[in-house]
């Protein structure tokens, strides 16, 4: 569990912002190499500015404690700082997972959201951002995946039954299909 580099932090926040909110705000991050404390990744003291979605900020500053993003083997975990400290007692080679895996950085240094992040981005996803990241829900409001919209709302209304509405990115079936690669 190591702290994300500044570069990767920016990529991550951009990605999340795309899915979670359209309104951006400035957010400051302290890095352990810049500040003595190694435990605090994100604080309200600004050392480098990120433009992140308002709702992304909500992910980090939560009423039940501060949460942070940590990286392990290119995978980004979203974990409360309290739990993180406990997780540090486990040797890295024995640590399989801690908190929630949000996604991974590809070899080309792009960030790919995993279905496991659905729980967190679903509540904040604004449905009206078309041609952007969208979250797909069932008729009973159960989130089942996310992707990129292929048509505008108006087009969707008149689309034929077999038309593609959303380009698939992730769905909850992956819990079964790709259990091994999720984390």
């Amino acid at each position, binding site marked *: 569990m190591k702290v994300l580099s500044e570069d990767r932090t920016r990529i991550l926040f951009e990605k999340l912002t795309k899915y979670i909110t359209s309104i951006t705000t400035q957010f400051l991050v302290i890095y352990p190499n810049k500040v003595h404390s190694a435990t605090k990744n994100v604080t309200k003291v600004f050392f480098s500015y990120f433009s992140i979605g308002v709702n992304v900020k909500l992910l980090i500053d939560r009423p039940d404690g501060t949460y942070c993003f940590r990286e392990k083997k290119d995978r980004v975990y979203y974990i409360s700082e309290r739990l993180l400290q406990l997780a540090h007692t*486990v040797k890295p080679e024995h*640590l*399989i*997972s801690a*908190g929630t895996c949000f996604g991974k950085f590809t070899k080309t240094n792009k960030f790919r959201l995993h279905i496991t992040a659905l729980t967190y981005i679903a509540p904040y996803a604004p449905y009206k951002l078309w041609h952007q990241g969208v979250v797909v829900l069932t008729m009973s409001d*159960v989130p*089942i995946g996310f992707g990129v919209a292929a048509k505008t709302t108006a087009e969707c209304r008149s689309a034929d039954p077999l038309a593609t509405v959303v380009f698939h990115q992730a769905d909850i079936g992956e*819990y079964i299909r790709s259990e091994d690669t999720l984390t």
Partner: protein
Amino acid sequence: MGRKAKFDETKKVKKGPGRKARKQPDPIFRKELLDDDEPKKLSHKQKQRAAKRVKKRTELAEKRKALKEAKKNVAKKTEVEVEAGSDEENVKGFTDDNKEWLKPKKAQKAKKGKPKQEESESEDENQGSDDENEVSDEENEGSDEGVSDEEVDSDADVEPAPKKGKENYKYTVKMFMKSVFETNNHYSDDLFQDSDAEPETGDASSDEEGDSSSKIEYNSDSDEKSEADDDEDDDMLPIEKANLKLKKRQKQDKKLADEEMQINIAKQDVFAFPSEEELENPTSLQDIHQRIKDVVTVLGDLNRLKAEGRSRCEYTELLLKDLCMYYSYNEFLMEVLMQIFPVLELVEFLEASETARPVTIRTNSLKTRRRDLAQALINRGVNLDPVGKWSKVGLVVYSSTVPIGATPEYLAGHYILQGASSYLPVMALAPQENERILDMAAAPGGKASHIAAIMKNTGALFANDANKDRTKAIVGNFHRLGVVNAVVCNYDGREFPQVIKGFDRVLLDAPCTGTGVIAKDPSVKTTKDQKDIQRCFNLQRQLLLAAIDCCNAKSSSGGYIVYSTCSILPEENEWVVNYALKRRNVKLVPTSLDFGTEGFTKYRQHRFHPSLKLTRRFYPHTHNMDGFFVAKLKKFSNPEPVADEDEEGEKKETEESQENGDAEPEGNSEGSDTEKKAPVKRPAQTKESGPQKKKNKQEQQKLQQKENQAATANNKKKKQKNKKNKQNKDTQPQPTSGQPEGENVNQFKQSKKTKGSNDKNEQKTQESVKKTQKQNAQSTISDKDTLKKNIQSPVNDTQSPGRKNKKKNKKRNAPPQSNPAQVTESKPVASPVNSNQGTPNKNKKNKKGNVSRQASQSNDKAQLTESKTVASPVKSNPVTPNLNKKDKKVNASTSKVSQTKAFVKITETLEKKVAHKLKNKNKKKQIGQLNANKGKQTKPGQGVGKKFKKN
């Protein structure tokens, strides 16, 4: 095409060429037993006759009226009595004259009850009775049973007399005896119908009763009697009358049932013990099944049912073989099961183990509620129900039109497929919010996610599993179910106390043989043997101790450990818990599960702690869930026993184990696999070693420091002695290198140098030897021999001085732990080395100078080879010379405690890496300690020289 009985006579089965030529005739029912609810249509002549009868009766009725009016003066009661009396008289001599008597009575009744309907009723009655009597005539004639014509005739008359009824009854009973088989069904049917019909007649007027009575001969008896009663107590309500009737009927039924029973018992075949030929050539599974049943009944009442000259043993052996064949178990497992269950229950268990348990799912309370989930699944066509009052999250799935493991709800993490029995350990654990909880063997994460759900994602949950592949399943399930407070890690559970401690609660769902889930994995039936069980409970004991060590007794809310397995073998359950009770500061507490059977406190020769009653067992055949065992422990104090206590504890343990038959002497360890006792003994010792090591590791540093200090103090004196010794030894450096193991040599040297101390040591060793003698007479003898040799043959020492030095050094490291006598010995020898103590052993050796590094290395190698030759890989002599020394010491003294302690010290002194390797190796070795000792024992007997040659 089955044969169709003509139950419905209106539909006639087609007969013709297409039909089978030979056809079984339709079943013949006795006419009496057939009940005709609907009066048959009357023929023309019958109608005419009936009309005549009616005429006659009306005339008679008028006459009677006249008579009655004449009698009006007589009091009612006397009237009734007289009538009743006359009635009985009539019973015997029944003639047409009596018609008058009988009729009027009824008419009277009718008058009293319903004067208006009087006439019409009486007419109807007469008609009806006549009709039915006629019908019965026909029936009787048609039947082969040969009812006398007289009876029929009398029946045809107004009313059958009670006597006749009795006769009929007797007759039926006779028939009963003759044709038990045939009659049984029909008879019971008739009874059933009768009883149904009764209430109606009871409700109806007494007149109607008369009718119904004549319908069926059998009925007639009771009905007539009741009629007589009716006459006596006219004021009785219809319901009361019905009640009386019912009671009588029940009495009769009982009588008949008893008779039937006795007939059946008499007919029962006594099970004949099969001949050897029959046993060798089993015919079919059905036969075997039948035989199993028979043997079970015989075993149920052996004294009465057993064949002459057969013992219970023979029957149980036969049963064992049959069960093995029928259910395809291996004999070992079946034998074990037979020891757990009484025979009847065993068959139930085996039967239940053949069928799968119902599919159950657990609602993920983090994401949904059970009601919502049930609704959603019902909408998808799933048929389900709550699992029971004991669980608020469980649902039983009876049937489903969709795959239950792939619904959107499942993928969204609203539920997880989990056996009902898996809820139990978590319920027993009763996790609280904001606690720190450990699931030691978590894969695939069902129970762990249950814990997280109960904690509502607060606190911290450590989900550990030793299998890295299976941890992926944990991660997958956790993410799907939305568990975010969890750390998933991959450690051997036994190492976990070194990673992190201080958990409020620990759940250990230990790996087991799976004898409780045979329905899920039938391979258990054939693949498990004594060794598997042994392996399992060894591991389980170590894991349980580790789990206890991880737990924090001072936790304000917790300090609980729950131990569970999906096995039903006491070896893996009660015994393991019992072991932990002895070794750690824990006590059993109620599991808060209000069902399940109590754990065993006795099992075969074992007597467990009485508090093991508080544990819970679950069986497939009694609770319809997988076989399971749950024990809840509370840790009441943190500190693990101190080193000294450990020794004592170990000694006690060994003693206890000896008493219990738990621990076997070293010699038995390997060869005793076949014996049941053997497995037991082994585990106890191995386990002891495990915890000690851990403790030792922790204490290593402290010990080292102490050692150094003490060593420095004593070193000067010792050094002098040592130097002298060394000089002597050093003079002959080469042999040391050649001699891999200095165990014996060390002993020799020690004995020579400090004779006084040696004497003490010898005494101690002898004592220990005596202890061991009980266990292994041979091994002890060999030990004694070696000791004697050592003492007697100073020459040996001179031959291998270098070895001695090495050994001494090694001993030095160990002194504080080992027996005082040994320590003293080792100290003088090792004193020169003391300066080096802080450095690893290798360095010490080098510093000693006399022994070259090469020599030491060669020694190591030699030792390794030796260990291999010993042929006990696990037990194999430690890689480092120190270990060997210890082992040898052990052989001499056979005090395991000292061995382990020495081990620890040695490991401490080694370099970190070396120490690490050693630890691992040591652990393995310790697990198999007994074997190692074995090998060692044999070697010392052979003598040092042989070893050399080998090397």
